[in-house]
């Protein structure tokens, strides 16, 4: 127990020193600010944020109504475009990147003809679950304008959670999380080790009462601060995508640990900033490409297999499972195992490198 307390105490002293030092270091501070601005930029400008844009609607017509929808532009300038679906399931699948699914009831034509207010069932995605009332009003008004007659859109509990293998904006969010966390890791964390080596302050640490393990743990804590600030901000901004918080929190921790491990490994291996610049691109590509393409059906089977087993792909899969439904326990456990083993190996290498420092 005392050993654990000593480890954590010394690691915290090293970590807190590095955090305070980073805040005094213009270069680190500007890197942190740039990364934060990048997260906010992607949040506002990428399509992962549900903007008020043109509305795509998938229509399942239960009664084979005589109506044929075409693209309609409303008075407020918003354009509604329609795609047919053959069943409710087909509608849900086709909604992958669409805003709205609607089910036209069998008696829809009759209600229209009799002048009653037809009731249409609307289906929306999980990300918009907090806006049901507003969307019901908005779509009721829009469809009333389209049909030139009052229409009632009821959404209620018709909230669709995307399937784990479905394409959609959760894919973009998943990838952006990988990008933010690992860009942060590679731009900030290697300096934690590199600077100690270059200024030879690591020599002084090695002759102080701290052990190599405590040094690694301390640096990991400082690295976690960076990831918490930038990755945590991204997670908070994209939190409306999260379906399974019990899964996403350990997954975020996994992202952080892998990223910290990679950052520290790079920092303990390289000898200069110049080397870091050279390796940065190679590392970024090898970390970013697998999660970007591992689900692509056009990829050759062998390459897809390699990409699927990449630790960043495993974490991306786990993040997708947190934003979707339908992932099986074996799928989750397999990806968890890949991520955990990778993290253990990488931290083992960092520890070994520090232990062998100048030996």
């Amino acid at each position, binding site marked *: 127990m005392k050993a654990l307390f000593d480890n954590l105490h*010394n690691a915290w*002293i090293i970590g807190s*020193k590095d955090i305070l*030092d980073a805040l*005094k*270091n213009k270069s680190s501070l500007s890197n942190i600010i740039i990364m934060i601005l990048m997260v906010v930029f992607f949040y506002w400008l990428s399509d992962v944020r549900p903007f008020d844009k043109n509305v795509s609607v998938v229509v399942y017509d239960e009664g084979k109504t005589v109506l044929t929808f075409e693209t309609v532009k409303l008075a407020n300038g918003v354009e509604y475009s329609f795609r047919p679906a053959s069943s409710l399931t087909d509608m849900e699948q086709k909604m992958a990147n669409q805003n709205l699914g609607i089910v036209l009831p069998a008696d829809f034509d009759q209600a229209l003809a009799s002048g009653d207010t037809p009731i249409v069932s609307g289906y929306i995605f999980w990300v918009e679950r907090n806006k049901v009332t507003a969307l019901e009003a908005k779509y009721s008004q829009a469809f009333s304008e389209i049909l030139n007659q009052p229409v009632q859109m009821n959404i209620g509990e018709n909230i669709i959670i995307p399937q784990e293998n479905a394409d959609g904006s959760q894919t973009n969010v998943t990838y952006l999380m990988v990008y933010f966390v690992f860009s942060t890791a590679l731009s900030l964390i290697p300096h934690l080790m590199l600077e100690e080596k270059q*200024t*030879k*302050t690591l*020599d*002084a640490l*090695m*002759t*102080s*009462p*701290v*052990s190599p393990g405590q040094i690694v743990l301390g640096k990991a804590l400082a690295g976690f601060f960076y990831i918490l600030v930038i990755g945590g901000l991204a997670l908070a901004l994209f939190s409306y995508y999260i379906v399974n918080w019990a899964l996403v929190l350990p997954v975020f921790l996994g992202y952080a640990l892998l990223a910290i491990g990679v950052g520290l490994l790079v920092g303990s291996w390289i000898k200069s900033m110049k080397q870091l610049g050279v390796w940065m691109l190679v590392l970024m590509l090898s970390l970013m490409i697998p999660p970007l393409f591992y689900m692509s059906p056009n990829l050759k089977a062998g390459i897809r297999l390699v990409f699927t087993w990449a630790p960043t792909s495993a974490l991306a899969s786990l993040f997708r499972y947190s934003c979707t439904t339908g992932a099986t326990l074996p799928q989750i456990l397999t990806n968890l195992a890949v991520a955990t083993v990778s993290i253990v190996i990488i931290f083992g290498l960092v520890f070994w490198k520090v232990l062998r420092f*100048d*030996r």
Partner: protein
Amino acid sequence: MKTIEVTNLTRNYDGVKAVDGICFSVDPGEIFGFLGPNGAGKTTTIRMLTGQLLPTSGTAKVAGYDIVTERQKLKPKIGVVFDSQNLYARMSARENLNFYARLYRISKTRVNEVLTQVGLSERATDKVMKYSNGMKQRLLIARALLHEPEVLFMDEPTRGLDAHIARDIRGIIANLAKTGMTVFLTTHYMEEADQLSQRVAFLDQGRIVALDTPAHLKAVHGKDEKTTLEDIFIQLTGSELRKGSEEL
């Protein structure tokens, strides 16, 4: 009991013997001068004795602890003044010392004491990057003394300093000896070693070529009363170097 006991200590780098089977011991409270030309193996020896570098063979005990098997126990017993000014430049002197004080579980009162001891109290809140070389060297000494070590290793503590500051640093070292601390001192400056050390060892090409008190070395190897320790050093190590040059 000896404070430092070294037996057949050897360190190879890529097959080249940087330190070649050295043996010596240092008594408690002694200032021991470890002298040698560049590349003789002084820093390698210090790195091994402070647990930063594993020996290829041989053994050594510092403050009663084996440098390989009892490294963690050894650390609180030693202080090291490195040959590089390895300080956190963006932090102040006080912040640098507070950081190490927390690692050694030492009170901040002790930080004030060592700052006073090395004459940095008035500039304690200045960032280290604004310090002169001499001030940085004083801070390195303060850091090494913070936890009141049994043995202080000083790797060329006056190198590159102007005469006045070097004299101040020598004054600090001399005062340390009066407190009973054992000091293991490497230096290029023979006069400094002569002035401070009770005994000196001359290291050349990884081997100790002489080990004695400066007075006895001068008496045995000197030609007359004017012979300095530097003359003896050149006599004992220079011939080896010349032989090396001829072979090249």
